[in-house]
């Protein structure tokens, strides 16, 4: 009987292990390669409502700049956490800005409504990707401090708690 329990537990362990492996987390880059302490490149890009959003208008706020796409599975998984993060820290000065790397705004508008996103989303392009060091994989999130400097770059799917910790650190530091 004990053997069966061990086999069952073993199967569970393997299944969970494989599942976790398949959902590998991303990496955080700090220091020079993350362009840390460099000023985040300014941009003016169209939002889903057609109005342009300028990053430099957010000086004085902590900005979480999230490069994502509707067809990117880990990006989609992160959105509800970002919505929650925006709700939780808006009053303390957090502003999340999504930069969609979709080819067209139509699926983004639909996604925005369906997931009840509560922060602005702009349509990205190759130029903005290159100015941020090449957005050649999604998602990529930058944490930008109140002076517009890049604090951290998160490449790939990132635990919500890791993003939140960075946000809290930057909010508290200024």
């Amino acid at each position, binding site marked *: 009987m004990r053997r069966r329990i061990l086999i069952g537990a073993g199967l569970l362990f393997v299944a969970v292990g494989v599942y976790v492996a398949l959902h590998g987390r991303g990496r955080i880059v700090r220091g020079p390669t993350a362009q840390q302490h460099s000023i985040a490149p300014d941009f003016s890009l169209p939002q889903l409502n057609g109005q342009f959003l300028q990053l430099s208008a957010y000086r004085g706020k902590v900005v979480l700049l999230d490069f994502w796409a509707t067809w990117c*599975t880990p990006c989609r998984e992160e959105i509800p956490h970002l919505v929650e993060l925006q709700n939780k820290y808006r009053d303390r000065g957090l502003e999340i800005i999504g930069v969609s790397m979709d080819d067209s705004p139509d699926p983004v508008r639909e996604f925005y409504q369906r997931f009840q996103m509560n922060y602005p989303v702009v349509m990205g392009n190759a130029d903005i*990707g290159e100015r941020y060091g090449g957005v*050649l994989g999604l998602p990529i999130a930058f944490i930008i401090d109140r002076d517009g400097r890049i604090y951290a770059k998160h490449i790939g799917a990132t635990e919500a708690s890791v993003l939140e910790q960075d946000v809290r650190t930057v909010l508290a530091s200024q």
Partner: protein
Amino acid sequence: MISKRTRRIALAVLISALSAAVFLGQALGQATSIPSSHLINPEDLVKILQATQGEKPLMLQVGSYVLYAQAHIPGSEYVGPVTSEAGMQQLHRQVDSLPKKKFIVLYCGCCPWTHCPNVKPADDALRAMGFTNVKVLYIASNFGADWVEKGYPVAKGQ
């Protein structure tokens, strides 16, 4: 009467089954379920591209245009994310007139391999159309880390 031990075993098996179901659900339709015989590694593709002899593949990028415009394999053609109907139609259009033995390499690199939603449907579609010499470029993390940063040939723009 069901013993306590039996209940424990049943619970362990149930949780295992649920975990396996979640795992399989995620894997189906994703790159991880592509047979290894369909894959080609970046270094092997580079060797083929740099060789003076041998058939050169038609390379199709099935990710987003914004990613393609930043960096793509020289000579590769943009198709778009085949998870959309428009992308799938475009894929069909680009290969429709080709011989079924044509050497085709599909790639994306939008996301880690375990999460790429595009290459598996594209591979399935080409095989369903009768193409017999299709390979999928295995990109473990993303196109930036596994191709550009390795110094392999890159082109930008359209």
